[in-house]
């Protein structure tokens, strides 16, 4: 794979990310007391760590602007939204519909992310995994899951 170096590359992203993390931490931690050396407050360590993040971020940022870094790989919106939707479906259904139904729809949903969809496989895989999940987690490991919709 050909990777080109650019100023708007990974380093830029990483630097901005560190700075953002640090700045958010400092902002939301502004109400926490820092205390004294003997009795450090809850805000002492976060302030130290967040300032460190901003500093590291700034260095990474400057270095990437000076020397350039590897380009960021392209983003596939389909994959990202697919994952968000799949896990969202599980979270939304497991509590109310139980393991059987939740596994079915989650696996079926996950299969949709892939462009090479084979309907027969989707049906087989989701039923198979749903049954396997119930056997493994509920029967063998005895985890207190809700199995069926109530």
């Amino acid at each position, binding site marked *: 794979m050909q990777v080109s170096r650019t100023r708007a590359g990974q380093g830029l992203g990483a630097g901005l990310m560190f700075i953002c993390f640090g700045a958010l931490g400092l902002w939301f931690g502004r109400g926490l007391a820092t205390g004294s050396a003997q009795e450090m407050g809850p805000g002492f360590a976060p302030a130290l760590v967040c300032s460190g993040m901003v500093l590291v971020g700034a260095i990474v940022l400057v270095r990437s602007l000076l020397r350039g870094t590897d380009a960021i790989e392209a983003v596939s919106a389909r994959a990202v939204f697919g994952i968000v939707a799949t896990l969202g479906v599980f979270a939304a259904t497991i509590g109310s519909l139980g393991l059987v139904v939740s596994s079915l729809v989650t696996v079926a949903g996950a299969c949709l992310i892939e462009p090479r969809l084979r309907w027969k496989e989707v049906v087989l895989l*989701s039923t198979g995994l749903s049954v396997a999940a119930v056997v493994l987690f509920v029967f063998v*490991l005895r*985890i207190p899951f809700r199995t069926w919709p109530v």
Partner: protein
Amino acid sequence: MDLIDNLWLGFTVAVTWVNLLFCLIGVLVGTLIGVLPGLGPVTTIAMLLPITYYLEPVTALIMLAGIFYGSQYGGSTTSILLNMPGEASSVVTCLDGHQMAKNGRAGAALAVAAIGSFIGGTVATLIVAGAAIYIADFVKTFTSVEYFSLMVFGLVAAVVLASGSVLNAIGMVLIGLFLGMVGTDLSTGAQRYVFGVPMLADGIDFVILATGMFGVAEVLANLERRIRSGQPSAIRNVGRAGLTRAEWKQSAPAIWRGTLIGSALGVLPGSGGMLSSFASYTLEKKLAKDPSRFGKGAIEGVAGPESANNAGSQTSFIPLLTMGLPSNATMAMMAGAMMIHGIVPSSKVVTDQPELFWGLIASMWIGNVLLLIMNLPLVGIWIRILEVPYRLLYPTVLLLCCIGVYSLTNSPQSILFMLGFGLLGWMFMKFGCEPAPLVLGFVLGSRMEENLRRAMLVSGGDAWVFLQRPISLVFLVCAALLLILVVLPSFNRSREALKEG
């Protein structure tokens, strides 16, 4: 020879049909939950406690201990095959183990993990048998000062883990430390970065973070690549199961070093077991002739940490068996199991109930043999998983991640957190930042702060205590040396780069 007499006593207890059977059940269940993400030994032991009610105490403990170290064995499997750490300590195994799988050496990685774990487990069992009491006496002297300095050393080691930029690694350690501080402050009860979310009040759960950042992020990255390029499978080359002669030569010393590190650090409460696998990895990388192989599938990066991890899981029994102090959540569960049977874990167990103490130790070695016998043939089967087309594999992985994480809290919110960490991990990949240093920072973060504050509170605000106590001083000097070793080469590199530029 007391030791031999005692071990003989132990084996007469452990080698009965019933105890062998329950040892086998324990390691089987342990392997299973180790392989599955999310599910840990704590939940499983809790679930099985009422059943052990009918068993002899020693039989119950043999089975429950088997679950614990069996899960440590099993944890490496999913790390290597799917980049999904089933257990906290197997995050390190992901680094080179999964790379080996991508290079078609999954079989070798799994085999060396099993063999390393066996050697680590055997040696550590001997250490527990022979030196437990002396080690306990040493650990008894540790205060917050020593723990803090040890963790400083651990953090410096975390920077070495990264195969890319040192600066990025430092940044990631800091993010990890930060995430570790989320939750209710131990000393004051102040809520930090909780934003009114009840789940965050006790801090971020490690398993949720790791499953998201490794398991989910890896699936997302693979899917992206497949959608863009249309490649049929993430890994096509399964390779053969055994190790080559060269791989043996590289692994053997790593296994021994890992065993030593694991045995030593496993005794320490809290994150000892986890620190040991990170420390072993760091050591191997520093000793290697060509450190650049690490992160690209270096077999020492699997052999060392896996041995360390399993050795540590055996020696983590020492504080419980010799002082009655459980050193981690699983050991607390074991202590509970003993209490349920009316045995109070204390320093008196060795003298009052020698058959229990030595029987358990003998069973630990037998369990390790069983695991080796079971795991080596399994390698051939496990690597077949890689031949499963990815379009069938990834929905399975996602479902396992979901169920495993949900089983921890029984709250759908935890799935959303896992998703959040998945996206975060994916962003880290995009920006060329590796998550491993973050994980170590995360694990050490709150404990480190806690110990610092406690040490300062007790010393009355005098920071010199860290240099006055000898063990602490040793850790800090080691940390400083390691830091110089890490920073110097990268400093030189950047100067060269500037000259060329």
